[in-house]
């Protein structure tokens, strides 16, 4: 089985220490959120841990999850923020399984991880928003497959700052961006040039499972069905007039995101051919919050919120009751500069989304069983939404684990994660 | 000036050219022999390494730009000298000071693309292709892929 590589980075002293931990840590905490908890206990509550699970980047379906764990003063518990798209596999393919961030850098800095090594990278000059930051990094930094970045809102220390995967946004509603900004960590670049081992039978299992999932998912499901599960069915009207393409995370056979192309009525928006602009809709909770308040104008506003690194749900709650597009844009910019009065908690999001898990996950299932499934996903490193939408595949997941995994340790790990909530 | 010399010193050290025993294996596997009619020892990896060792102004040498950076020489070297690291490092030095004549830039993104002799070789081999294809090939690979992404997807 793969060695567990843990990188401990001291941002103060700029040191990096990579250890290959013995298997007992795996046996005890399995991985993902549970192992992150273990590391937090070991190194201290003021620290930030990123961790992948044993199934991340394997042939398990939607094995895309990277978990960012930290002690949130807002929520009062240790929260785990899910980072999807390709963050998890790129992280593991960069050669490490967990990243412990101690202390704080003296000036904003980036980390570049590849080949099992962590390097410090200077910030490129003049990056005013996330898209330009990413473009700039593509030119100046060592090559990377994906990046976890914070936007200008995080620089201003605003509590409604959210982390972003590249320039696409994320499900961070718990303030992971704030935790990174507190350590002066502007972003993590994932080189992703390595590989992850797998067992012989995994390929066939993956094909079978993907076939079953595809047969079960509803036609045109995906983002719309998630929005409906979150109770925002009437917000779907706000999407009319846009063109959609399905988008999926790493190795996921059941896309739950869409890319929306809409007509860019505002000259401030970058305009492609036919005056179109586009963005990835991956955050149903945020979308519902904005669409509920602004209806059809929600798409350009979401685009702007993502650009500035703001949590769309919290931003929506701070928007005045009425407004036009230009004033809303100004309001968002003001929020990103920290000039807006902030609400004390993230509880503007629908009550059904669990703060332990970042506050951004749509609650497709409810009840204790559903929470256990989510915790399981966070520990194994697969997408929690897939497990909620297709609960029957939970029994198939252990097939992708190495033979020496004990089910008992999995249950124990689940209890641990839930106990913190 | 002193900073530049220091950088050259560091590049040379990192490529390990002190270990060169002049066996010539790098030149034996080097594809430049097949590429250039005017191939000379001066542009071969062995030649560049030798010039660097004797302390001459190798960064200013035109012959620096014929290499394709394929790394076959490094693989063949029994002493672990990396001719590619040397050439790359020196080229980076010259590029940082400003775009040299011997380097083409991609018309799409403006980044350095192929060295002039290398591009001349490639386009020379493709001389029967129509001019618009040749112009297209002046773009760097990333820009070409993006171009097809825009047209075909």
């Amino acid at each position, binding site marked *: 089985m793969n060695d567990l590589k843990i990188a401990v980075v001291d941002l103060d002293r700029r040191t990096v220490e990579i250890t290959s931990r013995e298997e007992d840590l795996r046996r005890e905490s399995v991985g993902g959120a549970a192992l992150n908890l273990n590391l937090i206990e070991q190194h201290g509550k003021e620290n930030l841990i990123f961790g992948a699970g044993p199934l991340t*980047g394997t*042939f398990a379906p939607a094995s895309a999850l990277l978990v960012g764990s930290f002690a949130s003063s807002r929520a009062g518990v240790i929260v785990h923020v899910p980072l999807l798209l*390709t963050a998890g*596999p790129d992280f593991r*393919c960069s050669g490490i399984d967990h990243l412990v961030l101690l202390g704080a850098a003296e000036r904003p800095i980036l980390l570049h991880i590849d080949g099992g090594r962590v390097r410090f990278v200077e910030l490129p000059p003049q990056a005013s928003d996330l898209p330009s930051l990413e473009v700039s990094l593509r030119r100046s930094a060592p090559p990377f*497959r994906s990046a976890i970045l914070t936007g200008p809102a995080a620089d201003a220390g605003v509590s409604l700052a959210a982390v972003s995967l590249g320039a*696409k946004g994320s499900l961070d509603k718990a303030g992971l961006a704030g935790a990174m900004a507190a350590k002066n960590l502007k972003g993590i670049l994932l*080189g*992703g*040039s*390595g*590989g*992850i*081992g*797998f067992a012989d039978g995994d*390929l066939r299992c993956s094909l079978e499972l*993907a076939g079953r999932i595809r047969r079960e998912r509803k036609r045109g499901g995906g983002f719309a069905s998630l929005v409906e599960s979150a109770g925002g069915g009437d917000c779907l009207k706000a999407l009319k007039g846009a063109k959609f*393409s*399905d*988008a*999926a995370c*790493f190795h*996921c056979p059941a*896309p739950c995101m869409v890319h*929306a*192309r809409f007509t860019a009525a505002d000259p401030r928006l*970058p305009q*492609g051919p036919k005056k*179109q*602009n586009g963005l990835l809709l991956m955050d149903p909770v945020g979308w519902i919050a904005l669409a509920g308040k602004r209806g059809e104008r929600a798409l350009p506003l979401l685009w702007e919120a993502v650009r500035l690194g703001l949590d769309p749900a919290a931003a929506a709650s701070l928007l005045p009751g009425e407004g036009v597009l230009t004033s809303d844009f100004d309001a968002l910019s003001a929020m990103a500069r920290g000039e807006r009065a902030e609400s004390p908690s993230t509880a503007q999001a629908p009550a059904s989304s669990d703060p332990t898990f970042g506050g951004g996950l749509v609650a497709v299932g409810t009840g204790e069983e559903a929470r256990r499934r989510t915790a399981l996903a966070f520990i194994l490193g697969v997408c929690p939404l897939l497990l909620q939408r297709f609960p029957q595949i939970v029994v198939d997941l252990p097939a992708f684990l190495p033979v020496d995994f004990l089910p008992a340790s999995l249950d124990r790990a689940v209890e641990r994660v839930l106990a913190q909530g | 000036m002193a900073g530049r010399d220091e950088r050259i010193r560091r590049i040379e050290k990192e490529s390990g050219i002190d270990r060169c025993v002049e066996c010539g294996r790098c030149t034996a596997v080097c*594809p430049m022999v*097949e*590429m250039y009619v005017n191939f000379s020892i001066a542009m071969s990896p062995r030649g560049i390494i030798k010039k660097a060792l004797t302390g001459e102004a190798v960064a200013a040498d035109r012959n620096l730009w014929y290499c*394709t950076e*394929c*790394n076959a020489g490094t693989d063949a070297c029994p002493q672990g000298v990396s001719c590619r690291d040397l050439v790359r490092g020196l080229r980076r030095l010259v590029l940082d000071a400003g775009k040299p004549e011997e380097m083409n830039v991609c*018309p*799409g*993104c403006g980044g350095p693309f192929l060295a002039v002799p*290398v*591009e001349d*070789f490639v386009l020379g081999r*493709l001389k029967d292709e*129509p001019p618009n*294809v040749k*112009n*297209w*090939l002046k773009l760097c*690979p*990333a820009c*070409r*892929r*993006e*171009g*097809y*992404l*825009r*047209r*075909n*997807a």
Partner: protein
Amino acid sequence: MQDERLGIDDLRPRGLEKRTLMDLFMPRRRPFILFDPDRCTGCGTCEILCSTRNTGKIAPASASLRIVRDDARGRNLAVYCQHCRKPLCVEACPTRAMTRGEDGIVRIEKLFCTSCGLCTAACPEAAPLRDGRTAEIRKCDLCEGDPLCVKHCPNGALSYTKGKAFRWIKGVRWTVQLISFLLLVMVFLGTFCYFNAGSFGLSCPTGTLQNIFATGRIVLAGLASFLAIFLLTVLLGRFFCGWLCPFGFVLDLVDRIIPKKFGLPKFLKTRMAKYGILGGAAAGSAAFGFQVFCTVCPIGTLCRSYGQQGMFRGAEMAIVPLLAGLELTERRSWCRYFCPVGALLALFAKLHLLKIVIGAKKCKKFSCIQCAEVCPMGIIDGDKLREGLSPEIPMTECIGCLRCLDRCPYGAAKIRFRWQKGVPGEVTGAEVNR
């Protein structure tokens, strides 16, 4: 998804070396990987699978295919080797490590490859990829006939197929051409120039034109068929030339039997020449009072030659093989440069309702160009296709033979209404990177 039964046997059947007679008529079609951007969700499963074959691990940075993403438009493109029929990488490789096999697969011979990357520099799509970790060059090799990426693509964006070429158009067309030849030459004797069965007239538009100029009168019967052909040509283009013309049938036969072409001197290769001949025919008819061109017209010679009423025998028949000999210079060179019947039909076709487009989206661009090669009128701009652009096909020259539709394995050649704009516009190099 995969066409049933496609596998290694379709790529490298036993007895590949032997060429049979069937190969002359139905060239072997090899299967290829087709990418449909409308179905791609960007999940990257293809990269994962490909990398497992390359390295034995899940390492998307080491795959032989890459997903390129446009985040603004939300579209993805799979970049992989198209196994071009005339591969540029093979030309450029300095150590001759790149070869195109008998089975059509372009392979890298690892023994000779130095990973210099000149193949990537020569490939218009930059399909040979550098491994993110080891920096060696990797390229799709169709998994030697059984591609993994296709098997696992969850949304069916990648398919392994022999293509959607119609293939039956060819059979129908030859049949129609043969029947038309028999009818016009042997049954309706002396027809196409002038046929009168009762009150029904069928006459060649150019002949009618010359008749009008020669006699100064318009015969109603002739006018009816003139209009009929006019209307049909406006609707369907110069379909007469491709499907009905008996001389065209003769030319196509010559082309099949003797494929070798000797080329024409440049000064003769002007498409306007046929309009000049048409004008000359009209003027000559007016001047001399009889249908000047009809006397030497190869179509007419054929039509009027047969049977007892056959007007031309012996020496006059020499016109047909003489002008058919033009076929040895260039395909359908008579139709392209000299035929006044075609010229008049071309004028009618200027109002064409339909057009043929080679859709740049589905077209495999530089790697294929089969449509340009197979077009007898040579009006598909292969150079533009090589760059990935959709060429404008002049419908005044197109004879509607539909060989391009028939041959295109990617379904990129289509018939559209004149006003339809399905094809994406040009993107110049400067616009590539915003």
